[in-house]
């Protein structure tokens, strides 16, 4: 059956504390612009959803007119911080006991008067209908629970990477997050509310409730309350986690004395739930009975789910509902049951934002005219609380910190661009961007968390320096520091909070937090200066390359890209050098480079390949601005163009560290074209194209790229993908398999990582790969 219906609040409510004051910058943010409310009221938790527009500062690049040469200033361009409005979805989850407090708060802060209705779903929706209508003055419009649930589920599966996970209690990492499969359908959703519903979802709009069971969370709660005199669901689960079911259940070994070998039934298997309480005349402990009940219900639902999965030939089964809702105990027992009944053929999957599905779905129902499904959305790591933030035994720290009442938030930003897979991935469904999963690798996690914490002071300093004329920068930077440090602390305790923890997610979280406090581009000044300096050397660099023999030049070009890549403010070792010695030159970088043979060295194969026919089209994911792009990448690109290869340069849509952004790169390319006829003609003839990646990360997720980029790559019949830099080619994509030739180039600028990979600081990775069965 559907989600827990009208559970009486007196079984769950706490004393309502009306004196609670809500901190507006923590909960219900951006209410003044809020519209399109939706609410999902379950048996014990309320989930509120709204849409808001967020005004925040973005870095805009403005080019100066260089046509009249004399009039031009020294500056190439200007990066100005401007206000921009973007769309954001807010979801807040809190206990039903606080519903009135929350409604009052919303009423007081709501400015927008366009909103007339609030979409509502969940068993408790009718119960609070009057209260909502009275308090908010909005008309409550009820939506079907299951429809909302499915809509929400589709939405998170499509838009949130690492949304689904497998739970393994005794593994190194309890949560094993699943990579986003581009094709999410069909799947089975088992919603365990007061009863259980089994729904098969075939497509965005097509789903069917194929069955269910009256045994569900309500059975656990109801029977548990009768048996143990314990009233609260959470307390029952706690009792269960301490109990021994074997004192209440009749096991196979109680009947057989051992295992029932010929059927492969082990002795510890439950033959009859509560079987011992039927025969043994004794008292049973509350803990033991609760545990037995938990097993009975989990096994039963798991079995039913398996039978339905088998009948419909489905291997993806997601579990949700209040019985699951992030409780490790029930996730464990359900997983156990599924493994037992399917012998591992079906995996029990859980969702990070399972509790929000109904609210998300109800919201989407109300927002259909805004077409939310035509956009790509991204989880905002700065605003979202992460998994288990309200679980009492999981995160006591956060509870204490918030000082109000436990709430959980999810914020999703509407992305400017629609994101799709790179069509050149060999197998999109098995593609994992990240090289190391820090949720599983404790040692690496330790190091990187420490590393990011260490780097925090520098980032704060840089952020302040980037806005000398904007008031409040220091104060905001301090808030950023607190926010990010808190995120790091959370991740130290719960590495799984936002899906798989990776260097990429740590970097992205930092970018989100910087943006949150209006530091859209802390490196703008540095990038500007470096681009300027590097441009002055461009012609000289090209000339000296042209003087070389063909073979020497190919080597010099690669060394140039690598040396350029040493210029990276994101890397701790380098930023120290750069900071202390701004004159650290290109030549110096070359000297620092490791001599061949490199740590990973397929230069000889690359050279051989270059002796063959030219590539049709190369897609180049570039990294840093300044020396890297201008003196390293551009000459390399120039050589490709001269060979007759078309080049597509992919750069970030928005700033991240000192990475060159698409708008900056356009100006730089124009400037280079003005001095270099090769680039100029290539631009004019459309043999050199600039596209944006759709990303604002220092790393690269090839499964979430700008739709235009994917289209261009396909149209031009790209047969070479070049990925440059530590973030894009080592932290991510190091193992990425492409269906065409690929070149991954990076200098390892982190001694710990170098150590891990068996190299040393400034070791070189030059990885040229040809897909198996596709000799060029």
């Amino acid at each position, binding site marked *: *059956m559907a989600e827990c219906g009208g559970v009486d609040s007196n079984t769950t409510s706490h004393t309502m504390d009306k004196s609670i004051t809500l901190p507006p910058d923590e909960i219900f943010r951006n209410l003044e612009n809020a519209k399109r409310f939706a609410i999902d009221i379950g048996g014990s938790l309320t989930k509120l959803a709204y849409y808001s527009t967020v005004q925040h500062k973005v870095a805009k690049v403005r080019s100066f007119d260089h046509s009249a040469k004399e009039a031009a200033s020294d500056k190439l361009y200007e990066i100005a911080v401007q206000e921009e409005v973007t769309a954001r979805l807010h979801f807040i989850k809190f206990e039903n006991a606080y519903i009135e407090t929350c409604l009052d708060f919303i009423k007081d802060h709501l400015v927008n008067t366009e909103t007339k209705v609030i979409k509502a779903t969940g068993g408790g929706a009718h119960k609070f209908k009057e209260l909502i209508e009275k308090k908010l003055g909005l008309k409550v419009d009820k939506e079907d629970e299951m429809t909302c649930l499915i809509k929400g589920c589709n939405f998170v599966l499509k838009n949130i990477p690492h949304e689904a996970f497998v739970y393994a209690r005794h593994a190194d990492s309890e949560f094993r997050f699943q990579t986003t499969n581009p094709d999410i359908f069909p799947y089975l959703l088992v919603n365990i509310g007061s*009863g259980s519903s089994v729904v098969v979802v075939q497509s965005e709009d097509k789903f069917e409730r194929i069955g269910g069971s009256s045994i*569900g969370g*309500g059975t656990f709660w*109801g029977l548990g309350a009768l048996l143990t005199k314990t009233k609260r669901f959470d307390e029952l689960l706690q009792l269960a986690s301490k109990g021994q079911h074997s004192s209440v259940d*009749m096991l196979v070994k109680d009947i057989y004395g051992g295992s029932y070998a010929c059927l492969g039934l082990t002795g510890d298997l439950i033959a009859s739930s509560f*079987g011992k309480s039927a025969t043994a005349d004794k008292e049973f402990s509350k803990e033991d009975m609760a545990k037995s009940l938990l097993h009975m219900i989990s*096994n039963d639902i798991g079995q039913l789910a398996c039978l339905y999965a088998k009948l419909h030939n489905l291997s993806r089964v997601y579990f949700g509902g209040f019985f699951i809702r992030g409780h490790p105990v029930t996730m464990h027992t359900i997983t156990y049951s599924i493994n037992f009944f399917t012998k591992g053929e079906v995996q029990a999957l859980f969702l990070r934002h399972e509790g929000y599905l109904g609210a998300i779905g109800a919201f989407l129902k109300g927002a259909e005219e805004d077409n939310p499904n035509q956009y790509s959305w991204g989880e905002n790591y700065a605003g979202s609380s992460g998994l288990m933030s309200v679980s009492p035994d999981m995160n006591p720290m956060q509870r204490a910190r918030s000082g109000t009442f436990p709430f959980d938030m999810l914020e999703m930003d509407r992305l400017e661009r629609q994101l799709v897979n790179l069509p050149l991935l060999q197998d999109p469904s098995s593609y994992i961007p990240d090289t190391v999963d820090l949720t599983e690798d404790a040692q690496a996690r330790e190091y990187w968390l420490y590393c990011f914490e260490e780097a925090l002071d520098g980032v704060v300093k840089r952020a302040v320096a980037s806005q000398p004329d904007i008031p409040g920068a220091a104060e905001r930077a301090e808030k950023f520091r607190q926010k990010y440090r808190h995120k790091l602390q959370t991740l130290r305790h719960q590495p799984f909070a936002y899906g798989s923890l990776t260097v990429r997610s740590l970097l992205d979280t930092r970018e989100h937090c910087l943006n949150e406090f209006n530091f859209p581009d802390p490196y703008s000044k540095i990038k500007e200066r470096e681009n300027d300096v590097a441009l002055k050397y461009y012609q000289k660099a090209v000339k000296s390359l042209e003087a070389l023999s063909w073979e020497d030049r190919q080597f010099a070009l690669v060394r140039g890209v690598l040396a350029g890549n040493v210029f990276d403010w994101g890397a701790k070792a380098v930023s120290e050098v750069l900071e202390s010695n701004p004159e650290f030159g290109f030549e110096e970088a070359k000297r620092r480079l490791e001599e061949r043979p490199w740590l990973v060295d397929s230069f000889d194969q690359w050279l051989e390949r270059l002796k063959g026919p030219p590539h049709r089209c190369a897609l180049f994911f570039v990294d840093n601005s300044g020396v890297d792009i201008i003196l390293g990448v551009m000459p390399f690109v120039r050589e490709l163009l001269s060979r007759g290869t078309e080049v597509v340069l992919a750069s970030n849509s928005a700033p991240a560290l000192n990475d060159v952004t698409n708008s900056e790169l356009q100006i730089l390319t124009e400037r280079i074209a003005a001095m270099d006829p090769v680039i100029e003609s290539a631009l004019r003839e459309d043999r050199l194209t600039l596209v944006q990646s759709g990303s604002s990360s220092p790393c690269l997720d090839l499964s979430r790229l700008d739709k235009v980029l994917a289209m261009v790559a396909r149209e031009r019949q790209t047969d070479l993908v070049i990925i440059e830099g530590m973030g894009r080619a080592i932290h991510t994509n190091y193992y990425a398999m492409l269906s065409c030739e690929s070149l991954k180039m990076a200098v390892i600028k982190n001694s710990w990582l170098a150590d891990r990979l068996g190299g040393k600081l400034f070791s070189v990775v030059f990885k040229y790969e040809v897909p198996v069965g596709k000799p060029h």
Partner: protein
Amino acid sequence: MALNGLQVDDGIVDEEDETPSKLPRCNKEMPGPFGSDHQNEAAAAAGRAASERRTSNPSARHRKDSVKKTRPPFPWFGMDIGGTLVKLVYFEPKDITAEEEQEEVENLKSIRRYLTSNTAYGTTGIRDVHLELQDLTLCGRTGNLHFIRFPTHDLPAFLQMGRDKHFSSLHTALCATGGGAYKFESDFLTMADLELHKLDELDCLVRGVLYIDSVMSGGPLECYYFENPTDPDHCAQKPYPLENPYPLLLVNIGSGVSILAVYSENNYKRVTGTSLGGGTFLGLCCLLTGCSTFEEALEMASQGESTRVDKLVRDIYGGDYERFGLPGWAVASSFGNMMSKEKRESVSKEDLARATLVTITNNIGSITRMCALNENIERVVFVGNFLRVNTLSMKLLAYAMDYWSKGQLKALFLRHEGYFGAVGALLELLHPS
């Protein structure tokens, strides 16, 4: 009709040849010393008479000849030691000749008299007289088949009795199945000096079901169903001729539940099982109501109202949940109303017993239905002692099968509910496979 070479008293002989594996052959486990000539002689006479009377088929006669040679000595028992109950079938020969009578050792006689002259043994042992099969011909001998049960926890008393009656002196093979055959094997040996011949419980179950159904085809039918299961006023028990039984889904509800797909006499598989069975019903009832026996629990259940305990679809949606075709009366959440403190305080023990019964029964029904769909089988036979004197559950199962499958599935029941494993064990004694 003959099955596994067993002659029965309905005068019809099965002309089908048996599969070689089922042909009676020398049983190595048969105690040698007591396989006396005398016994075999007597049996041979009866067997010959029987075969002459009933058949002219040479191969059948040959079979009967082998039967008498390998016929084990009396007493003939089959035993099924389950998690909760011990089921015992005993064949009482009624064709004992005067000579046999004289030769019959005192111990054997005393056991026969004790079992057949009582209907209750100790405080907990019971003979289900209404199930007794009279004038049954087994292995060429005619007699009555008795059905006896007692709780597994009283097995020590049973063993003590076996010891007192010097059962071991009879040197008979005691065929036993069920988990207890394994668990208590050493107790049988040490307490009663009895060596168990252990048999697989599902093999015995399938064999027993098919045998009993075959011998009952003359008298009151073993198999029955409920006509008009969805209409309480016209719901009636009707005999069901299980002539061509395959394939069938066999659901054995004991302490736990096993679900088998049976494709032929020798071809079956265990599809799945659930731990929510009769033991769960009784166990939960004991905890919730303080009752102590199955009969008590059923009695309470018959007086209770489960809708006070369960949350129905209409309790949530005010009526039917039309979007998904769920009727308002369907249970949305078993024990769902018990999440509320007031409702917990307002329900009676009877209501709780009824809800427990309904929950367990419906759950078995729903798992069974899914298995039937997965295995593509339309006939479902429910057996096991959970159904003993439990018309409530049987009607509920009949209803659930019919309603949720839109009439596709038929729920069938057998009169000898829980004894098939024990019968199978007895058959194994007489005709080892």
